[in-house]
């Protein structure tokens, strides 16, 4: 089906049905998921799917609808539902659709080679990865290994003259295993997710990382409740970053529901913290040419050496705030100068965090509390694993105490960060 053509036609149809403005969002995807366990296939799942989403404006009120039925009558019916729904919502002069601004293609979002790799080769990769991860004698069970791929085409058209699309792909290979010793069980997993098949990491590297995560946690010891340094590994840095991202969401700020709402151009964190939004990196997992409204992405500094420099706005929130939509977003923390090993060596007493649970920083009031697993450090050396601990504090306290920033930024993750250290936090234990 020619979705490009269909999108343009549906914009016209929406106008004829009585909408003042119409936006049509079409997404079409193909997915494959293979799971193996204990040397044999466990599941194979394959699908083609697609759908149309409508957003309409009627006298300043907004209505949405979506359908995965491309039948012509169903599409008209779905459009009418959106128009009928718009009549119920509250008119707001800030409800507008974006104009079609020029954008730059982002290179390397789509790899046609993924689909051409034979099914048996993909199954073999998952099988080999599992076998490699099970090689270590401490690893007793497999929870499964998998290969996944997906490709998606997005088309956006609106009544302000926009009609554009992009295609993207991703593939992944990963494994999850269990290490056992006496009554203890620990899980470990690792995966590699890339836009291009050729960029997937070597299977032995993924396998070793998964196995290590499981066995290195064996024989944990409890520590007492105390204040000590907390080193965030890149794998868990997201737990702090997520709350900051939610708190600089322009709509939350306008609603008075953000702990950063009054901090524009003020210092709210350590000067070691710089956060950049960049949706343009070639082959980046979070990269795309434009956001869900069709607004081009860009590269911006949101937090500059601890000073808040920008909020994130969609078209509606930008209208309300009297500014421009920023396009959303692929954020990361800028690398610092320290080797992660040096950060550990410079820590007298504290935890190297490998796993955290909970919801991260509460974006409304900045409270933070979570469960913690990792390694205990005394006199600059890791001495044993720890689990069942808690860490807590306020965002203000935690972010201002970042005193070492690592140089180990891995740009192949989304919402990525290097290792960093918080000088002191409350740790709950025995």
């Amino acid at each position: 089906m020619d979705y490009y053509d269909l999108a343009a036609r549906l914009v016209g149809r929406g106008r004829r049905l009585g909408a003042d403005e119409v936006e049509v969002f079409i997404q079409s995807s193909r997915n494959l998921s293979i799971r193996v366990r204990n040397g044999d296939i466990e599941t194979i799942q394959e699908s083609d799917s697609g759908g149309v989403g409508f957003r309409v404006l009627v006298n300043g009120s907004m209505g949405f609808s979506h359908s995965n039925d491309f039948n012509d009558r169903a599409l008209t019916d779905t459009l009418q539902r959106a128009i009928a729904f718009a009549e119920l919502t509250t008119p707001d002069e800030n409800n507008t659709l974006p104009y079609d601004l020029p954008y730059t293609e982002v290179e390397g979002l789509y790899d046609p080679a993924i689909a051409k790799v034979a099914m048996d080769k993909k199954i073999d990769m998952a099988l080999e990865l599992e076998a490699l991860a099970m090689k270590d004698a401490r690893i007793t069970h497999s929870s499964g290994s998998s290969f996944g791929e997906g490709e998606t085409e997005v088309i956006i058209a609106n009544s302000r003259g926009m009609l554009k699309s992009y295609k993207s792909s991703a593939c992944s290979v990963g494994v999850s295993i269990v290490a056992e010793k006496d009554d203890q069980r620990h899980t470990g997993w690792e995966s590699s997710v890339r836009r291009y098949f050729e960029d997937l990491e070597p299977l032995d590297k993924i396998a070793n990382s998964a196995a290590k995560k499981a066995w290195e946690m064996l024989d944990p010891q409890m520590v007492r409740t105390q204040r000590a340094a907390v080193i965030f590994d890149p794998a868990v840095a997201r737990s702090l970053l997520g709350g900051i991202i939610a708190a600089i969401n322009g709509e939350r700020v306008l609603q008075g529901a953000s702990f950063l709402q009054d901090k524009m151009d003020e210092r709210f964190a350590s000067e070691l913290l710089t956060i950049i939004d960049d949706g343009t990196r070639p082959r980046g997992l979070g990269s795309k040419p434009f956001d869900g409204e069709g607004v081009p992405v860009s590269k911006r500094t949101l937090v500059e050496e601890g000073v808040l420099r920008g909020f994130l706005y969609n078209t509606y929130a930008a209208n309300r705030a009297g500014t421009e939509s920023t396009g959303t977003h692929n954020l990361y923390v800028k690398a610092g100068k320290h080797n992660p090993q040096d950060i550990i060596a410079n820590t007298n007493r504290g935890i190297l965090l490998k796993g955290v649970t909970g919801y991260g920083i509460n974006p409304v009031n900045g409270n933070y509390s979570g469960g913690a697993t990792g390694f205990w450090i005394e006199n600059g050396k890791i001495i044993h694993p720890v689990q069942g601990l808690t860490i807590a504090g306020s965002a203000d306290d935690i972010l201002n105490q970042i005193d070492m920033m690592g140089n180990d930024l891995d740009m192949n993750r989304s919402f990525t960060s290097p290792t960093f250290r918080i000088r002191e936090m409350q740790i709950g234990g025995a």
Partner: protein
Amino acid sequence: MGTNLFEKRLLPRRKFLEYGLKSGIAIAVTPPLLTNLFSCSGSAMRVGPGLDMDKATLDRVIAKALSQGGDFADVYLENRNSRQIVMEESSFKSGLYGISQGAGVRVISGDKTGYAYTEEITEENLMRAATIASYVARNGKQIQPVNIETAQRKTFNTVKQPLEAIADSRRIEIMERANQAALDYDPRIRMALIEYNDQVRARVMATSEGVYLRDELPLLFFIVQTMSDDGNNRHMSRERISAHSGFELFEKETPEGVAQRASREAIAMLDAEDAPAGMMDVVMENGWGGVLIHEAVGHPLEADNIAKGIGAFTGKMGQKVATDVFTMVDDGTIPNFRGTIDFDDEGTQAQRNVLIDKGVLKGYMTDILSAKQLDLPRTGNGRRESFRHFPIPRMTNTFIEPGKDLPEDILRDTKKGLYVQSLSGGSVNPVTGVFNFTCREAYLIENGHKTQPVKGATLIGSCMGVISNIDAVGNDLDFGPGICGKGQMAEVTAGQPTVRIRGINVGGSRA
């Protein structure tokens, strides 16, 4: 693997649209954030023409699915019509209407599962899905499918005011009433976020065992969050109601009542101070607190990880795993409850399953595959989020049975600790049994009394630890609705009477 997010997120509108359509990219093994966002947005209804596929055609599809071999095959057809209306800052920000339909074909061969789905329900597409799904059964043993006939199942859901017959203006009115009640509660309530969701899911299933079933499940989900602000502190509270029911739900539970309960929490927590850190006794109030048991004990009792030999309760059937006062049940038959789906998405009749009886492990929750692997009965827990997923063992309405203690006695007998009035949600690793929860509303206990409110602390522990440390169980069983994520979403309730747990690690920000 193993993260079960138990939190309703308010999605940005555009995001919802994208995910509602089906997000494209498969991510292996990692905790599937994208699928978590898929969300059970709620949805409403009309039976689509595609579901009228005749039985002879379905028999042909099943025969095709088993043509390479296999022990079992089924076809699942679904049509879901949904509505979501969002009110923020006293304005109706958006209304979303959604139609989603499709059908999936599954083949089980030994321990293997093949699955494929199509969104356009035609015989040709179903045959193609059957061919793809049959791939896993090559060289498997052959069986002869039984021709399908309509099977009889009991229903536990009643509808008095069908959602399809309700004018949208009545939905709007319910939301306005809740908004007004929230703002009237206290001037420090600055904003209410109100989300109304409803859906009608029509499903048809046909299996190689000859079962044919067809029904429609309505589902209402109404969420009020209120934000308080007194110039120093701010708190976002939450209250939810949900049922497989018609619009009559709002006669039993008024929107004003929901909004007032949310507002009470928002105001109470303005005085919250830093929570203490370390091991302490915890009293959990009756109701949604049952989510702790849902996560910490329920997930490890789902039979898929037991069949893999890696679940925390593997090999413990018949053993004493908890204190004598602890009995835990999963019951898919409680009338109109959010977790009551009459029969599961494989056609097995829902039932009451006692999982732990006076501390002794009595049962796992199974789907067809794990029941076969473990040689256990089917318990009616094979559920799926939609036709885009194959069924896996899931909970329905899961709770701790009431005991004999009076809630006030439990509190009075606790000298020092934490009183948890409500939890946001949490997660568990089903292999290790390590869980975590975030408190939404909690107080210090001093000399048997609830005193100072404290900020959202984390509770962590292990499943075996928590059930062997529950030493008091109240007589005041109550429930709360939730969304459970396990790679795919399921609507559930969790419940408990007031209970006391001796010695949980609490993550506060002061010593």
